[in-house]
Each structure stands twice: as structure tokens, then as C-alpha cells.
């Protein structure tokens, strides 16, 4: 592996507190090393004078792989017309698709923007083997997946019984059996309630059969995540997503962090695509933004982190979520195409193509909510901009979304094209917060790395970190991003140079080499005595619930292209 020395760039590395200083970054054997260890005769020297050097970007929530993504591809052939780009072997494979692109375009487009780690946030356990097959084929980026546990019958049984230790052990087993990274709750309990009673549930409503509430599920999962000492504690998609007035549910969900037994001061709950659960008002026609209330609650509660799910207007999107009851409702609003699927025992999913319109009242409110939350909370370490690709917007539009955060002018220019009466009812235009490039580096690099617990070797440029580096052609001394936001968008859309794992993979926005990243998963240890009890439970439950054998359920490490196991020592007692 070659040695690379990046000279004279303006380095933004929030984890090490470097804010735009001119520094040299040295890369050797896929790791960042001290510049003195580089043999200058052999090293490739990159002159990054007048350019921004950042760690590789990290996307904490983007639906890039799994059965429902594939279902989207099947359902939307029209998404692929006029988007084909032939291969250029051996450098690049063929690309196609817009909202649900093929695996190659996903990897390449992320790399072109300087992203090097992306997390697939929802995979049903029984189909996670498929998710890994797809993740294996996504080039350029490192990957991880979150496993769905929101309506898992075994987990619900254990919660209803109140066996905390066994629940933690079961979740630990599930994570290592499916080779996933963290727990994801999607509309907790709703899929179970939908199967039985044909309706979703709010946070304090009883789930039929089990006689527990979604609040119990979230609390017990939180506790289990604390016991297991998971690096990313709990990823929650709140109940009542997409319904007017649901911001109250979101606030209640945030409150749960106060009821649990924490083991550390680290964030205990991550509320994802909060825009979709920040609606005030009692119907679509009286919809208002609940952004301010959520922002206030977030400021007051240090154990909660958010990501936005920012809506991008005027672009087609494909909503895909494990919140099957909501997709059923959405289908009746759009009345075009719809697919729902249910896996045995565990989870469900739905898909509906959607287009957010600039002139629409509702869509404009949605657009404003995400930005309001980010701008009012004003804490880039805890509020992470995402578009919940491809639900609210495409990951390709991240630079545009970031431009709204760094530039008030960009927001005002864009606001000229949206629905005026909706805009008047939001506080967006009165907010004058503008994030700096340093904040952008936090939001897209440092904070997600910290949140995923990967900040030892991801999301920073200190010695020992993985050599994932993005260089953007933007001179922060000359360009004022808040005024010249278009330059910012251009620079971030096409990275000038991207280094993945010590190799140059993108030059001036074009892929020059196809590489394949790693897949991270956790393996929490379970004490021996509990292990025996768990094995008995699994044998019994698999016989009772599943159509497949326990051995067929396990995904082996050899099925992952390049697996990285993160062993965890837990606090579960035997």
C-alpha cells in the first residue's frame, strides 16, 4: 500500500479540535500516521493548498440495502429510465437509478461526495442475510446495519414477562447472529398491533395480546442497550410517525431517557428522522411545525440525539420504512403504487413512491421543521443532518441541505419558491443561525462517529485513525460560505480528492478506483449461565414461531465480504 502525504490543506478535525489550521496529513498502510514516518522519496505528495481537508463523511441513517430497498427497485422501473451510465472497466461498474439506485451507484455517489461510512438503519433479522449480500456489493464505503426489534415476538414476550436479563441476552444474541451493529425500533409495537388488530398504536396505548405499551418497549430496550453497553444505544423511529399532532409522542419518547438506569453519561436514545414526527396541529390542513417544542426538549435533555430526515422539495422520493401501517395510510393519500411486506415473527415494511412539492402547504411545513430543529438546538454534536434517504430526499442532495444550514441566504433564496402561507406559520425565516465549516465537519463526521462509538478510528484525522479522507476544492479564507453558498454546494457535491483506506478512489468528483469497504458488527458477550437459559428459550421459541431452523437463522462471518467484529464486555449478570 502506498504512502500519501497531504500538504498545505486547511484541516477540519473536530474530534482533535483542529479548526481550519494548515497541517500535513500522512497516510501509511491505510492508517493515518505522523508525517515524520513517511518516506518522502516513495510517498505520493498531494498539494491541497487552498482546499478543505476533512475526515471521510459518515451517514448514520440511509436506506441503502435490504429487502425493502430491493422491493423499491422492483416496484419502480420508471426510476431507472434515462439514468443509466455505462461501465468504465476496470475502474467503475455500470450505474443506474435515481431514488433507489443500484448498489454501484450508491457506493460511487457517496464516494463522490466524500462519504466513507454509511449505515443501513433497518433490517428485519430473518432477512439480514440478504441485507449483507447487498452491503457486500456496495463499493467504496464502509457499512453497518441496525437490526429491527420493534415488534419481535420473542422480545415482546420477554418484555411482557419482565425478564430483563434474558431480554438483554436475547438482543445480544440477535446482534451477533445477524452481524448487525445496533438496535432499531420502528414505530414500536405497531407492526404487532397491525397484524392482530389492523391499527397502529400511540406510545401509551396497549398493544393487543401482549398488554404492554410502546413506552414499555422503548424503556426496556433502552435498559437492555445500557446493560449491553452498545456503542450506539438505541435508534428510535417514534410512534404515530407522519400524523399531525405527533410531536407530543416524540416529546414523550424523549422523556423515557429519564426513567432508565444509565451506565454512562453518553446519549441513551437517538430519535431518527425527527422531521416526520414533529407535526403540530390536528389535521393536514392545520398542520404546523412542532420544531420549536422538540428543539427545546432536546436542549433540556442531554441524553437524546436527533437526526433530521430533512425534506428536499421538488424531487421524487421513494418512501420506504418498516412502519408498515403508515405506508398503508400514505398509499391512500397518493393512490398510485404501494407495496407492503411482512416477515414472520419480526417486522414489516412498506413502500410508496412520493414527490414533495414546493407549492404544497404540507410539504413546505415539513421542509421547515427539519431546518428549524437544527437551527434552534444549535448543537451540531447532537443534531445530525440526514434526508432519511430515500424517504424525505436523496443522499445526493446532502450538499444542498447543508447549504441551508450554513447560509441564511440560501434558505431565503429557496424560500422564495415554496408555499408562502405555510412558511408564514413557521419560525424558519426569523432564525439567523449559520453553521460554520467546522460545524459541518462535526455534523457529518465527528458527531456521527461519536454516536456510533467508532470515534477511535473513524471521523477524525488523528494518528491511528483509518485513512478515510475527503478534500474539497473550497478555500475557506477566500470563500464566505454563508454568502457564496453555491460554491459550497459545488465543492461538496464533487469532492476534489477522496482517500478510502489509504487509497485514492475519487479525483475531481470522478471515481478512479473501485474498492470495497468493511462491515462492522458488534458481539456482546453473554455470561455462561444465561447463555444456557437463552439457548433453551431460543430452541423453544423457534419451534413455536419460526418456519426455519435456528441454525439457518445465523449469519456466518464468512458471509460478509470484510467483517470487523467489535467485541463488547457487558453488564449483564448471569
Amino acid at each position, binding site marked *: 500500500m502506498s504512502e500519501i502525504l497531504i500538504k498545505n490543506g486547511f484541516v477540519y478535525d473536530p474530534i482533535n479540535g483542529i479548526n481550519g489550521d494548515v497541517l500535513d496529513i500522512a497516510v501509511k498502510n491505510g492508517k493515518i500516521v505522523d508525517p515524520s514516518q513517511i518516506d518522502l522519496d516513495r510517498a505520493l505528495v498531494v498539494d491541497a493548498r487552498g482546499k478543505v481537508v476533512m475526515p471521510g463523511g459518515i451517514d448514520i441513517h440511509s436506506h441503502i440495502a435490504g429487502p425493502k430497498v430491493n422491493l423499491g427497485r422492483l*416496484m*419502480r*422501473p*420508471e*426510476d431507472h*429510465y434515462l439514468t443509466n451510465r455505462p461501465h468504465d472497466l476496470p475502474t467503475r461498474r455500470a450505474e443506474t437509478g435515481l431514488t433507489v439506485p443500484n448498489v454501484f451507484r450508491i457506493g460511487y455517489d457517496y464516494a463522490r461526495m466524500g462519504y466513507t461510512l454509511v449505515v443501513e438503519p433497518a433490517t428485519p433479522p430473518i432477512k439480514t442475510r440478504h441485507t449483507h449480500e447487498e452491503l457486500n456489493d456496495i463499493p467504496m464505503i464502509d457499512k453497518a446495519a441496525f437490526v429491527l426489534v420493534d415488534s419481535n415476538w420473542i422480545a415482546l414476550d420477554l418484555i411482557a414477562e419482565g425478564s430483563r436479563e434474558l431480554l438483554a441476552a436475547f438482543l445480544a444474541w440477535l446482534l451477533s447472529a445477524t452481524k448487525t451493529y445496533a438496535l432499531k425500533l420502528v414505530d414500536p409495537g405497531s407492526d404487532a398491533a397491525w397484524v392482530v388488530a389492523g391499527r397502529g398504536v400511540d406510545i401509551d396505548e396497549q398493544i393487543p395480546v401482549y398488554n404492554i405499551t410502546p413506552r414499555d418497549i422503548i424503556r426496556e430496550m433502552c435498559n437492555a442497550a445500557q446493560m449491553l453497553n452498545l456503542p450506539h444505544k438505541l435508534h428510535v423511529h417514534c410512534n404515530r410517525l407522519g400524523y399531525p399532532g405527533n410531536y407530543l409522542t416524540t416529546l414523550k419518547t424523549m422523556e423515557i431517557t429519564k426513567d432508565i438506569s444509565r451506565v454512562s453519561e453518553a446519549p441513551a436514545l437517538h430519535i431518527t428522522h425527527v422531521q416526520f414526527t414533529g407535526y403540530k396541529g390536528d389535521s393536514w390542513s392545520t398542520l404546523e411545525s412542532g420544531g420549536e417544542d422538540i428543539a427545546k426538549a432536546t436542549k433540556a435533555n442531554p441524553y437524546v440525539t436527533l437526526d433530521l430526515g430533512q425534506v428536499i422539495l421538488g424531487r421524487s422520493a421513494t418512501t420506504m420504512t418498516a412502519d408498515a401501517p403508515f405506508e398503508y395510510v400514505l398509499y391512500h393519500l397518493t393512490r*398510485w403504487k404501494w407495496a407492503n411486506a411482512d416477515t414472520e415473527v419480526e417486522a414489516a415494511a412498506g413502500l410508496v413512491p412520493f414527490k414533495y412539492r414546493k407549492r404544497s402547504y404540507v410539504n413546505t411545513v415539513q421542509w421547515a421543521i427539519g431546518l428549524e430543529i437544527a437551527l434552534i438546538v444549535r448543537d451540531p454534536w447532537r443534531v445530525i443532518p440526514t434526508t432519511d434517504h430515500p424517504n424525505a430526499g436523496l443522499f445526493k442532495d446532502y450538499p444542498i441541505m447543508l447549504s441551508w444550514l450554513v447560509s441564511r441566504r440560501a434558505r431565503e433564496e429557496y424560500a422564495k419558491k415554496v408555499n408562502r402561507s405555510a412558511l408564514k406559520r413557521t419560525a424558519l425565516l426569523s432564525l439567523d443561525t449559520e453553521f460554520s465549516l467546522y460545524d459541518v465537519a462535526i455534523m457529518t463526521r465527528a458527531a456521527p462517529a461519536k454516536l456510533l462509538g467508532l470515534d477511535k478510528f473513524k471521523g477524525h484525522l488523528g494518528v491511528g485513525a483509518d485513512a478515510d479522507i475527503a478534500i474539497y476544492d473550497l478555500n475557506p479564507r477566500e470563500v464566505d460560505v454563508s454568502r457564496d453558498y453555491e460554491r459550497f454546494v459545488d465543492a461538496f457535491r464533487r469532492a476534489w480528492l477522496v482517500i478510502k483506506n489509504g487509497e485514492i478512489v475519487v479525483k475531481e468528483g470522478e471515481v478512479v478506483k473501485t474498492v470495497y469497504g468493511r462491515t462492522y458488527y458488534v458481539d456482546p458477550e453473554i455470561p455462561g449461565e444465561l447463555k444456557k437459559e437463552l439457548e433453551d428459550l431460543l430452541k423453544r421459541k423457534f419451534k413455536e414461531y419460526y418456519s426455519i431452523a435456528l441454525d439457518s437463522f445465523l449469519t456466518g462471518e464468512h458471509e460478509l465480504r470484510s467483517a470487523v467484529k467489535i467485541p463488547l464486555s457487558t453488564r449483564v449478570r448471569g
Partner: protein
Amino acid sequence: MSSAVFSLHLRVKPAVLIDARNITPDRFAGRELSELRNIVVLEGGRKTRLSELFDIDGPEKAPSDPGQVTIVFETGSDKLCFIGYRMSKGRIVVKGDAGHLVGYRMRGGSIVVEGSARDYVGAKMRDGTIEVYGSVGHRVGGKLPGEKPGKGMKGGTIAVRGNAGSEAGFGMERGVIIIEGSAGNLVGADMLGGSVVVKGDCGLYPGAGMSGGRVVVGGRVGAILPSFYADSMVPSISVRGIKLDKPFMLFIGDVVVGGKGLLYVSYDDNRELLSYYKSLIEGEGVEV
């Protein structure tokens, strides 16, 4: 009005599909013959020049108005695709067979195919006329897979003297398709408007998923969907000057999509199938 005629002879019989989307009056207009020889044509996905595949004869310079350009394919081939793509004026004559997507997204002018054509004739066309002397493949005047109903043909006329394949008028919004012979299954599927007239027989389930427009079947029909309800008997109908002087039964549907499309089925040719419906309309012989 004089017209400049360019005749194209295929040099050899093509073995792979040829993308002839650049061979249109709009591209020819105002260009010299030497420039025309260099027009890009794709042969099996590879770029090549028009003169590699065709011998071209015609005046030294094409008139600047595409409406005065006539392009004649002296030899046809079922490998020639995208003939008349997005053309707005002028005339194309194919003295033989044509391939897929003849007149795709056409905006005006006329195309005459003296042989048969393959799938997607006049798909997504806006205006103009297409006449095919032989038969056509599936989805005449259709939309592409996955698109919304109404994304198909938006205007103009397609006349087919032979037979048509399945899903004629798939997702069309306006315009007329006239098929002199018979048609396959699902005539007028997902239609939003416009008319499809099949003078001969048709296959199963005409009008499936239609929410507007008109489908006329002048011959036998394979089966009618249960989501259509029989409305009335009409003694004769005329569509755009074509008079069909025999009794038709009018169905309205497809109620599955809340549609109000009109489906006319010839009564005399389908007595076995329709006599029960007739008794329902006339209120006779219904046993509860």
C-alpha cells in the same frame, strides 16, 4: 409545396438492433448531404455513422424546414428502432418492416410503415400520425413500465391495418388508435382518455384498470372483467368518422380504480357472453 426526398438503402441486413433515433426530418433539416452521412447511429449500442449502415440519396442540401423533408427507408428491417423519435414535422416512409419504438415521443408529422412494426409503436407520442400496413407488437401508443396511468400516448392517430399485440393503448391519455385486424389481451389497460378501436377480435379483459376513454371491440372478445358493469345497448357507433353499423353493448368501468371508461362490445359477435348481461339491462329473467 415541394418536398425533399432522402432515400436510405440498408447496405447489409443488420444482425443487431440499430438505434436510428437521429434519422428524423428535424435532424436532417438544413444540413448538407455530407453532414447527414456523419449522423450518429448506434449499432448494437456502439456508435457508428449513418453512411456505415445506409447508402443515402437525395438533394445536396435539406430544406431548413423539417416539414419539407421526407425520409424513405427503401429497405426495412425489424432491427431498426426509434424511427421518428421526437420528430415534429415532415414524413418518414419505411418500405418494409420496422423495429421497436417507432414514433416514440413523436410530436407531429407522419410515419408510414409499409411492413410490420414491433413493440411500442407510437409510445408516449404527442401528436402526428402513424400508419402501419402490417401488424404491430405489444403496447401500441403505450407508456413505459412503472409509469402512472396517462403517461402513454397524448394525442395523434395510429392506424394499424393488421393485428396488434397485447395492451394496445396502455396508459394512453388522448388520441386515437385504430386496429383493423384483431388485438391481444388487455386492450386499453390503464387508459385515462382517448379511443382505441379494434375492428376485429380481441383477447381477454379489454379496459382493465381504465379510468376514462373509450375502447371499441367490433369482433369477439375473450372475456370481460367483472369490474365492468353493463350500462345499455347502442344500435351503432361512430368514432372519429368511422361508423360501425351494428349493435354494441356499452360497459362502464373499471370500478376497481373508480373509473368511468366506456367499453363497447359488439353484441352480435358475442351473443353467448352478452345475452346474460342483456337480460340484466332489460330486467328480465333475473332470478334472485
